[in-house]
């Protein structure tokens, strides 16, 4: 145990480990807050779909040799998020079918573009890094950290300011519309926020594992708590703890960061299921 603590103390002296922890915790916090809304709106898999769109956008940015791919990725992902969340309900291709179509379509086009036009000598490595986020979180620059902090702060402010509206849209969209609430506008807001979270989370766990950050904290909290507020708070604490532990475990054990965080989420989910089973009927 002492050896592990010594190792961690040494590792924490490196700036990139501190950057990874800051960004990891912030991304986990943001994704867990919106995760509750997405799970309740039956849009659990939207994270996966949008992350594949982000992968496709990154491929386009790589082909265009853009120095900073973040703006392009953010714009394209936001557009698809709006398409899925705002228009999805009334579109001819609905919900899960639309997500599946956009998800695999973007993944295929992205990989195709990277293979055909990428100037990189290591296409497989690039694809692997983007899909599993292998080491991206440990190679962040200072400007990327500040950008993540700014975007996370924006997401948190939006969530706190519009908490009641998000709550209404999540539980009964038709009733909210009937009471004169601009549900379309709030769905748009949720779509934009989700797109921002997806783009941020790609660095942390990669595009294939993003759904885990959205789904596991919310579902784990729902095992133990019932009210929207307690589920949201528990989900945030759960997600932040798992991300923090996951990053620490991965740097000590030398395992891939993204999959270690998700594995920690899975263990946490198991634990919360057990707690929910024991405290059945006493949920708050």
């Amino acid at each position, binding site marked *: 145990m002492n050896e592990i603590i010594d190792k961690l103390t040494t590792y924490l002296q490196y700036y990139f480990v501190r950057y990874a922890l800051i960004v990891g915790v912030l991304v986990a916090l943001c994704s867990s807050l919106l995760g509750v809304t997405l799970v309740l709106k039956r849009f659990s898999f939207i994270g996966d779909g949008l992350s594949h769109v982000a992968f496709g956008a990154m491929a386009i940015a790589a082909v265009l040799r853009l120095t900073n791919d973040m703006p392009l990725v953010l714009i394209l992902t936001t557009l698809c998020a709006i398409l899925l969340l705002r228009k999805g309900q009334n579109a001819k291709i609905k919900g899960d079918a639309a997500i599946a179509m956009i998800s695999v379509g973007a993944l295929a086009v992205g990989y195709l573009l990277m293979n055909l036009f990428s100037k990189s000598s290591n296409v497989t490595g690039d694809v692997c890094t983007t899909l599993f986020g292998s*080491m991206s979180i*440990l190679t962040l620059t200072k400007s990327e950290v500040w950008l993540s902090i700014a975007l996370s702060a924006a997401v948190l402010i939006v969530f706190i300011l519009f908490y009641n509206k998000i709550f209404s849209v999540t539980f009964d969209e038709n009733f909210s519309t009937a009471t004169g609430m601009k549900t379309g506008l709030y769905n748009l807001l949720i779509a934009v926020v989700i797109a921002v979270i997806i783009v941020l989370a790609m660095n942390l766990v990669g595009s294939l594992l993003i759904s885990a950050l959205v789904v596991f904290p919310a579902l784990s909290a729902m095992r133990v708590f019932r009210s929207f507020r307690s589920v949201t708070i528990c989900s945030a604490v759960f997600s932040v703890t798992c991300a923090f532990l996951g990053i620490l475990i991965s740097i*000590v054990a030398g395992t*891939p960061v993204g999959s270690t965080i998700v594995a920690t989420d899975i263990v946490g989910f198991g634990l919360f299921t057990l707690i929910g089973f024991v405290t059945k009927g006493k949920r708050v």
Partner: protein
Amino acid sequence: MRKAFCLILILSLLLAFTACNQNETETTYDYDLAGFSSTMVYSVVVNNVCGINAQNAIDFSKYPDNVGKTVRFPVFFTYTVKADGKTEYLCYVSDCNNQCPSNITFLLEFEKDFSIEPVPADRSTVTMTGTFDLYETEAGSYLMISHARIVR
């Protein structure tokens, strides 16, 4: 009594000198990553030794100051037999537990008095010491480890 005291004093002095000597001979490294996990070794090398350029590719020119710096780190050892029959020894640090081909490879130039016999198994993990250096090819400059030595 006096003789015993003198003997103890001499022995203590000898011990102290020996200890001092040990400290002096202990080599220090600019990058001492011995005992670090593979994730940390890769991160340190990418963040402090090579750097990544705008195209997300390893950029050896980013930290020119590292040429000449000494290192001790756990690496994967490998070798290839070239067309002319000569064996080229290499080592690499790898991301995500060697699952992705994003390895950073260093050409090895062993110290003159150092024998690598028995040659470690291909892709086995060894602890390597040496000095960061650059070598030029038509395709560009690459990193190498000069004065290399396998310590474990």
